[in-house]
């Protein structure tokens, strides 16, 4: 059964919190309205990781967030990887499936990072082809997430929000709007986060991500790094409030990957997002 992802605030399912959720007795209240997992972490043949996800998906709506498809690869997508993802999704039956506006594969080598793309016509054509290929192979719509960026390319001819709008129009994909990434990218590469959020096609946004970043260096070398290692900052909360005011409630996820605190800290962040959604209603 597919459990739809509600317009509420969930958390990323990380170890060891996954064990706590997996062991909850049937019939007890849910700890969080929904959870998100990284698809590539579950492409193993068996073992405890899959067993934990099997238990969690019995009770919780699950969203599958990919980090390895490399939608921006000039060489196209890896058909074998798409097949493995299809196999996983047929089992998990996720309420949402998402990937990134980035690339990580060239020459068949996987670089394990969400690398930036130039926003050109040439690149838009590659993305449109790859997103359509993915949606066909997976038999469903995917949401495409804006990345955090540390640099821009001279070749770029349009702002990221306009580039995303074009992909939505060309492929029918949805968007995963990461508000922290918008803030980090705008600070790092110049640009107004407020303008960006106004230009994003509102109807296409199927999910929102919130996370914390760290600040590295100073002066010319000052750069915000999207570490997912801390609380969502005040500037990002303010942007989120503005986005929700415009879009209404959307499935919102608290992402925290490094220096993972007690689950209660994540649930407090999610509760803050839930309050903002309630106040906007």
């Amino acid at each position: 059964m597919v459990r739809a992802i509600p317009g509420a605030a969930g958390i990323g399912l990380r170890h060891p919190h996954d064990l706590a959720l997996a062991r909850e007795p049937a019939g007890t209240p849910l700890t969080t309205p929904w959870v998100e997992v990284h698809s590539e972490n579950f492409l193993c043949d068996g073992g405890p990781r899959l067993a934990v996800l099997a238990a969690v998906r019995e009770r919780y709506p699950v969203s599958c967030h990919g980090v390895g498809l490399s939608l921006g690869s000039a060489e196209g997508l890896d058909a074998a990887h798409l097949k493995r993802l299809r196999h996983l999704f047929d089992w998990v039956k996720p309420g949402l499936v998402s990937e990134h506006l980035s690339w990580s594969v060239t020459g068949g080598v996987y670089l394990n990072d969400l690398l930036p793309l130039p926003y050109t016509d040439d690149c838009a054509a590659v993305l449109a082809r790859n997103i359509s290929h993915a949606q066909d192979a997976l038999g469903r719509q995917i949401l495409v997430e804006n990345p955090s960026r540390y640099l821009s390319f001279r070749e770029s001819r349009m702002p990221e929000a306009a580039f995303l709008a074009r992909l939505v129009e060309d492929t029918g994909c949805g968007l995963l709007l990461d508000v922290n990434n918008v803030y980090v990218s705008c600070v790092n590469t110049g640009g107004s986060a407020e303008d960006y959020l106004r230009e994003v096609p509102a109807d296409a946004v199927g999910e929102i991500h919130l996370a914390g970043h760290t600040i590295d260096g100073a002066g010319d070398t000052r750069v915000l790094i999207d570490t997912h290692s801390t609380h969502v900052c005040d500037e990002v909360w303010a942007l989120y409030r503005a986005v929700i005011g415009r879009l209404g409630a959307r499935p919102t996820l608290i992402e925290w990957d490094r220096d993972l605190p007690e689950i209660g800290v994540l649930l407090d962040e999610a509760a803050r997002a839930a309050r903002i959604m309630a106040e906007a209603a």
Partner: protein
Amino acid sequence: MLAGLQRAFQDAVLGEADGTLAEHVTAPGLAARIAVYRNTVQGSLGEVIAAAFPVTRRIVGDAFFSALARRFAAGHPPRLPQLSAYGADFPDLLAEEAALHRLPYLADVARLEWARGESYFAAEAPALTPGVLIETSPEALDALKLRLHPATRLVRSPYPIHRIWQVNQPEVEDVPAVDMSVAENVVLTRREGRVALRLTSAGDAALVAAIAEGEGLGDAAARALAEDAAFDLESALRDHLIAGTFRN
């Protein structure tokens, strides 16, 4: 055009020089910005290797391990995005590393760690039940072909890899002296989600290796006896049934 940019990016983040990538990029503090990506790519792959080989890392120390892992990442980047499968070739790098020639056992310890990870992520399957052996007539036992459970691994070494692995667990503060002249064989199995490492005799290791190659039980037992005249098939099979070495 995009393909060329991506090749330049790959060269810059797997290597140490920005190269032609710098011509494509606008950013204040340009070199520092490319370095953010380089650090993430090399650092995150190094962390994947460190997580897969904790004992190896403890033996050589964090700094040396980190340098090795980065070199491995640059020379052998992953070909698959599921990183649980990344690092299979790392023990071979250790075997070839000149600076490690005083630790000749290290590559086999790393192979044991890799086998442990493979066992952890292997497919589920029902373990062999005693009934299969009991119901097979004594004449048919010789020809019986047992199958290894998908989570079973065998690691054989001329070094005491099991002992080295044990004394380098996080809870052991003072590592005792280990007699390096002892050869050890380890059978790894997974029961109820936990990987178990079991030290076993040379005869039993020969038995498991023969079964893995598809030999019938009679021929496999003969190979075990050739390795170890004291090999006792009945007691070895009893241990394997308890451990879940074979599948139904």
